[in-house]
């Protein structure tokens, strides 16, 4: 079980929750479980969500493991110039 913190807009889409507990071992499983448990998040997941694990931002790697005691923060996928 990992605790996931959502950014403000995403929290609203998850029924006003800013923290969720999810049974997931990696980013792929996290996205799958979030979409199942909170259908409001699905459009955001399809658009692209970045996952910050202990402050390191992962944009694409599904296989990245989620350590039990890590700080996991979801962010929108960023644009750059």
């Amino acid at each position, binding site marked *: 079980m990992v605790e996931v913190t959502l*950014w403000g807009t995403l929290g609203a889409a998850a029924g006003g929750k800013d923290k969720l507990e999810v049974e997931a071992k990696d980013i792929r499983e996290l996205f799958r479980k979030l979409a199942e448990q909170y259908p409001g998040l699905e459009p955001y997941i399809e658009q692209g969500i970045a996952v910050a694990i202990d402050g390191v931002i992962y944009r694409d790697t599904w296989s990245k493991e989620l350590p039990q005691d890590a700080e996991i923060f979801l962010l929108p996928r960023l644009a750059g110039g």
Partner: protein
Amino acid sequence: MGFDQSYSARKFKSVGTRPLRPDGVDKVTGRARYGADFNMPGQLVGRVLRSPHAHARIRGIDTSKAEALKGVKAVITAADLPDHTEGDSELYNILDNCMARSKAFYDGHAVAAVAAVDAATARKALKLIEVDYEVLPHVTDVDEAMKPGAPQLHESSNMANRSEYGHGDVDAGFNQAEVIVERTYKTEQTHQGYIEPHACVASVNGDGTGDLWVCTQGHFVYRQVCASLLGMDVSKLRVTSSEIGGGFGGKTHVWAEPVALALSRKAGRPVKLVMTRDEVFRASGPTSATSIDVKIGATREGKITAASATLRYTCGPYVGMWAELGAMTAFAPYDLENVKTVGFEVLVNRPKVAAYRAPSAPMAAFAVESAVDELARKIGMDPVEFRIANVASEGTKSSYGPVYGPIGIGPTLEAVRDHPHMKAPLGENQGRGMACGFWFNFGGQTCTDLNIGADGTVTIAVGTVDVGGSRASLSLVAAEELGIPYEQVKAVVADTSTLGYNDMTDGSRGTFSSSMATISAARNAITVMRERAAQMWDIPVGDVVWEEGHAKAKGEKHGNLPPLSVKEIAEKAGNTGGPIAGHSEIVADGAGVSFATHICDIEVDPQTGATRVVRYTVVQDAGKAVHPTYVEGQYQGGAAQGIGWALNEEYIYGKDGRLQNPGFLDYRIPVCSDLPMIDTQILEIPNPNHPYGIRGVGETSIVPPLAAIANAVSNAVGVRMTHIPMSPPRILASLEAEKGA
């Protein structure tokens, strides 16, 4: 086993040196090939007809007269770009922006295009196209667009998206504050101002395959987007990137390229399409105009107790994430217990907003850093010391959410505090300002080939377009990893049919990502060369190590075997298994965030409001500067663009919603004679997620200038400046208003 990207301290031989740039001679002698320099036999000239109205319904388009003109080979409208987007709203917006479908949303929106045998015929044909417009009310100002009753671009509200970030309890924090600063700031829309306009040659063949030669920051992304819009198979479209005469985010989006492809498909001949400067201003993607409310409270001892901001960013006719990026970056330099930011994307009748170097962060930093400066002065603290007292560091929960790893904002502030610039005397009518800036940086999908030539020279083929010197930097990295001289390595940008997919060069990712892939490819090539050396010596590969550019046999029994160089191993490649290469495909995650602090001295003429930049210093963390001259160039370039943004540049719209200044005479970017030599100081706080500690350096340098200059001007004239650009009329108006008050 996966590639180990963790940082390990090492003593560099090549990385950190300053060899001559490999593209320099071609560029200064005119041999370098930019987008408009490609030509094909039988190519046609493409031209685009654009809306003269800021907002209009298109009731019909009659192209018959244009089609009948001798020399015209194709005329297209939105009907020739059918909707293949399958419900993907982002892609649909790109399609609609490339060629208006039912409505023209801004002055300059494309409505039709022609391909003809020459430019004169193409221009004549454009005049023969008859568009039946129903002109609609328009809105171009960010605050006006949010008012009830404002002209609406779409059926839903002009407020296209709301985002929110922060933590803690800002109301409680403000209750604890002894001093509060609260102001509204505005910034006007600016363009990236790249010198090379968008240009391409498109050639679609009868068998459905196609080629596109184009000036872009990301040819793989252009291929993906263009193929999707044209209904082509991705692998059947080959995209080759040219040299780039500046992009700064503006060449991460497609504009005329799908139009050129559609014209070529219809005409059955190659089509060259080069945008004029007028078209670049009116119809490519500038940055947002903004209106930002900031409130910051602190104790008299200098501790910030709460900070909040509401940020309204224009996005043109289509929703973006521009205000959201402003909301994320606004307070990033600080360690705040209570912080809240809210961003609103606002639809207006202006061109679709595109990324511009650390997109959205400069405007947010302008507002926040202006307020921070004012707050420090109200408390009676030195602005640098006030920032240091509230600065974020490793372990701080960032204002946008995650905790920080090792970061450089504190060290940049300390370097600024101790910099001789801060102690230099100021002259009459001069003021000094400083400000901080932040940008995330990111990595992404990256693919690189490293090929060992028969003579031991090395070619690396990369898929990230070189926008700021990455070919030199990546050659240095390959030389470092292989242990060979820089001169033995050449880097080229491969086309989309010869290399795996690469994300575009944006987000300060080019050198960060491709250096990681280059290190990985070099390590793979070393593995092969060790195997080949083992064959040549007829010893187990486990007895071969790679040191200082040579295979060496280890162990006493191999003591008489002389080391083998890359050249010696390559010469025997045909006998030991064939060509030698290293390949790498990775997702380069783990980009280190970037911070900078700038100092600026400005002189203001109180009679005219004219300004002069007297002195400017950039201090920024690079993680590791691979080629320090290029890094300094990035720092100086970002500062120069920020100076133009702060003092002169703005889109000016008339009451008719038409852009009044679509050219470099009326939209004035700084030239060399406008600027002092910009001093730089590179700090190196290694990124723990890159083998060499590299962070992106391309964007952050544009974030602090707006605020640093606003603080300097405010200090020079004694009036707080809240509206960018601080053009002479605006400065005079502020002085007059102050007198009146």
